[in-house]
């Protein structure tokens, strides 16, 4: 993928308020298959937004073009013949499905399965976007989350306000009321959002359950006006419908405030909004979070660090991580004139020399035109790429939290006696660089009986659902915690006053589903997590053993001191000693026994 695929932001440093791209390409493809309209529409969109959205189009162009001749829509609707349908009749029922319609029906794919989860997902998408935007703009994030009860019992109004860079007026409608519109899907860069559906899906959910539009106020500079929009999504066309568009007075420097009313259920405890915010605070110690509950209670998660995470670089895809279909698509779209320059310019870690080697292996001329590479040849090229030794991708595109800040985050939110953290060196799965970090908090106010709590993070975002399906959990379970002075039953989490955190930073986190709840089981990932946990475990074991030893020697001391006087008394009685002599015996015996090890 070329850099040009980045969403073009009309001006300056304005960062990406991302909406569209949270959904994966996979889903996108599925959607458009068999629908000409989709293809056409995408093309049209491309025109409209210029470079903003070509990726979806590209991803699906092959299929779309094949189907293009099939005039599904134009076929006049006929009455179905009772028995066998003809191709024409079937065609009459074949209609385009808009992404928005698709998600309306399949809201569980995006994390809106039930009212409780819907509330969490909405807040999560809003906060993730705010943090991504702030960090990209180099602003220390301060985010305020407010949940106010609606008129009806099962309705809430969620407000997420940040001090971010704001959004250009003309981008607002599409970012918040058009699915699959955004900046993050088409680039390989570490960010929270990665697929591009989040906030607009939340808005759509609110619209579906309450009929209320999503409200946005955004301001990009203190000397520019704030714009207020109220938007609905036209689910048939997947286009924004503007209800209110006005300029308002908003007394902040800059920032964005999103309000969504939705059907929801507010709960405390596990998998709650509060848990999400708390865990976000741990992994993002540079963030200042305020939270107002429906009861009006205000909670503040304060900053433990004044430093922003290191800005990450965008990288080109590594050849090992590219599938045949994607390769073909890239061949079609490249601006490079020769195969050699295509390989060199579109991928990372391919020098002209390596490119030549690949061409030789594939038995294709290095000068042949990429767009003319036939399917057979692409196949050979693909095989050749995978047979060639290519350097691992560069890893400076990753921004781990860092051992110190993990400690700071843990100490800020969890009161314990012992903390440790480990940041592993970067590693690679399927051509994607990634980096694992782990941390432990032990003892203190943590619950001593019961199982350890596992906090999972992907690109600093807490994962609250599907714990058991996640590769990180698998690694925690497979770690032999008994070696580290903890107890653990077979196949279970270790028990004790323990919190385990695992963070995976990657340009592309391989989630098992579109709702981003569990990381897929790549052996490289499982191994890295295990190594990080083992290192943490070793340090914990040193602490626990030292503490046990201290407790043991104290216990021993107490025990000895309980009985030594009786030995002295007995000896005094039998030998008719003086009290001073008795005291001497006590002293000597205490010395003697405390020195001994048994």
């Amino acid at each position: 993928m070329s850099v040009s695929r980045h969403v073009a932001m009309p001006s300056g440093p304005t960062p990406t308020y991302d909406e569209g791209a949270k959904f994966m390409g996979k889903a996108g493809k599925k959607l458009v298959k068999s629908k000409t309209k989709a293809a056409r529409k995408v093309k049209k969109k491309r025109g409209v937004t210029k470079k903003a959205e070509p990726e979806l189009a590209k991803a699906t162009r092959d299929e779309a073009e094949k189907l293009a001749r099939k005039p599904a829509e134009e076929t006049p609707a006929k009455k179905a013949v009772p028995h066998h349908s003809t191709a024409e009749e079937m065609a009459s029922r074949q209609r385009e499905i808009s992404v928005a319609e698709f998600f309306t029906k399949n809201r569980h794919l995006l994390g809106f399965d039930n009212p409780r989860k819907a509330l969490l997902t909405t807040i999560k998408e809003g906060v993730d976007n705010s943090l991504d935007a702030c960090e990209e703009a180099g602003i220390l994030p301060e985010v305020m989350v407010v949940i106010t009860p609606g008129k009806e019992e099962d309705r809430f109004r969620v407000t997420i306000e940040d001090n971010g860079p704001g959004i250009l007026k003309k981008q607002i409608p599409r970012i918040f009321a058009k699915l699959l519109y955004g900046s993050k899907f088409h680039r390989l860069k570490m960010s929270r959002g990665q697929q591009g559906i989040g906030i607009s899906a939340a808005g759509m959910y609110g619209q579906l359950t309450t009929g209320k539009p999503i409200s946005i106020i955004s301001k990009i500079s203190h000397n520019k006006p704030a714009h207020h929009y109220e938007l609905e999504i036209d689910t048939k066309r997947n286009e924004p419908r503007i209800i209110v568009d006005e300029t308002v007075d908003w007394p902040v420097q800059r920032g964005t405030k999103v309000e969504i009313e939705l059907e929801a259920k507010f709960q405390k405890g596990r998998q709650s909004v509060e848990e999400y915010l708390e865990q976000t605070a741990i992994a993002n110690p540079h963030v200042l979070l305020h939270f107002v509950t429906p009861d009006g209670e205000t909670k503040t998660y304060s900053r433990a660090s004044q430093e922003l995470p290191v800005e990450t670089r965008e990288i080109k895809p590594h050849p090992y991580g590219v599938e045949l279909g994607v390769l073909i698509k890239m061949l079609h779209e490249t601006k490079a004139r020769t195969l050699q320059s295509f390989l060199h310019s579109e991928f990372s870690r391919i020098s002209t020399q390596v490119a030549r080697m690949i061409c030789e292996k594939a038995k294709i001329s290095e000068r042949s035109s990429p767009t003319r590479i036939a399917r057979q040849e692409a196949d050979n090229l693909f095989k050749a790429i995978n047979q060639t030794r290519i350097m691992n991708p560069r890893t400076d595109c990753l921004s781990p939290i860092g051992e110190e800040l993990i400690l700071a985050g843990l100490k800020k939110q969890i009161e314990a006696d012992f903390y440790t953290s480990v940041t592993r060196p970067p590693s690679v799965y399927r051509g994607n660089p990634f980096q694992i970090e782990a941390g432990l908090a032990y003892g203190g106010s943590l619950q001593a009986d019961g199982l350890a709590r596992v906090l999972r993070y992907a690109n600093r975002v807490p994962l609250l659902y599907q714990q058991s399906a996640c590769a990180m959990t698998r690694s925690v379970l497979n770690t032999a915690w008994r070696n580290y002075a903890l107890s653990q039953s077979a196949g279970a989490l270790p028990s004790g006053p323990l919190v385990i955190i695992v963070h995976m930073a990657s340009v592309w986190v391989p989630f098992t589903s579109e709702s981003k709840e569990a990381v897929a089981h790549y052996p490289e990932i499982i191994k890295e997590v295990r190594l990080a946990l083992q290192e943490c475990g070793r340090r914990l074991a040193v602490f626990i053993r030292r503490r046990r030893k201290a407790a043991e020697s104290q216990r021993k001391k107490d025990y000895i001191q309980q009985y030594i006087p009786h030995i002295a008394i007995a000896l005094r009685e039998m030998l008719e000693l003086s009290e001073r002599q008795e005291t001497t015996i006590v002293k000597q015996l205490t010395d003697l026994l405390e020195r001994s090890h048994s």
Partner: protein
Amino acid sequence: MSKLAAQIKDTAASVRTKIQRRSKPTLAFPLRSLSNVNYHPKQGFFQLKGKKKVRTLTVGTVKTFAQTLRMMSQAKTLVEDDEIMTKREAYYVSKNWQDARFDEQPESDTVIDDIEALFQVNREQLGFIPEEKGGEVAGKLVVIDRDSDTGKQLRIDCTKFGSGAYSIPISIEHLKFEAKAKFVLAIETAGMFQRLVKHNYWRKANCILISMGGVPTRACRRFIRRLADELKLPVYAFVDCDPYGMFNIYRTLKVGSGNAAHINRYFCVPQATFLGVTPQDIVDYKLPTHPLKEVDIKRAKDAIKNDPFVQHYKAWQDSIRQLLEMGVRAEQQAFAVHDLNYVIEHYLPEKLAAPKKFLP
């Protein structure tokens, strides 16, 4: 100061010396178990082989060590004051020792037994006396005792208790005996003893009857031993035909126990022989039986394997094997199946007439 008190003081002094030299004090006890005893028929009782258990003062042993020393101090006081204390009382006295007190009496009993073994004396010499009753006597014996107030001699004629009996005191060393009996019959159960007393069997057989009431107490064993030694009387044991009667009762009477091996010398009756009931008697007298319990079988096998006394006598091994093969046991009162007084009229006279049928 008595010799024993001096011994206790010496031991205490050695403990103190070790402490002063900054080394861990130790106490060495003879190991009290069957594995640490020998049996030689010449001596006639279990003797210690000399294995010792050394208790070193460490963190793990500090409590027992303290308790042992305090109990030793208690013993020293008892010996010096010529006072006595029951084992139960010793347990209660320990309640003054705060942290070092005993929680249950078996703990203090063990410490007393340890001290006894440490000094190779019996606990009565240390002033600790048991609660247990010594056994009962009827028949042709005169016990000569003293009135504890006046010191005047008392002659107790054991034929004159009617349907009752003379009770063996806890301490018997001061007693003297006169008797014209021909033997001593030591009986396991009080029930059988009652029957023989009621019918004045002692008169008919010219003997002394002693009820042991289960495993004979030390006083009872010592009493019988002195009768056997001083009056040169043979001693016959009449107990149930089961491993408990044979080994826990008869063997302890004759050669002592592993646990008290250090004092068996005084508390056993090597002259005793086993009149019955033998496994062969079950056959000969067609006695009603009960099947052997698991614990019986275990005890019998254990005796063959580990008991030095049984290992010394083939006759005993044969009898045990016979019993195990028959798989049954019989009580001494089982003779009642024939007639209530069958034991008096037939069994005892017949057995006494054929001492070859006795077991050693």
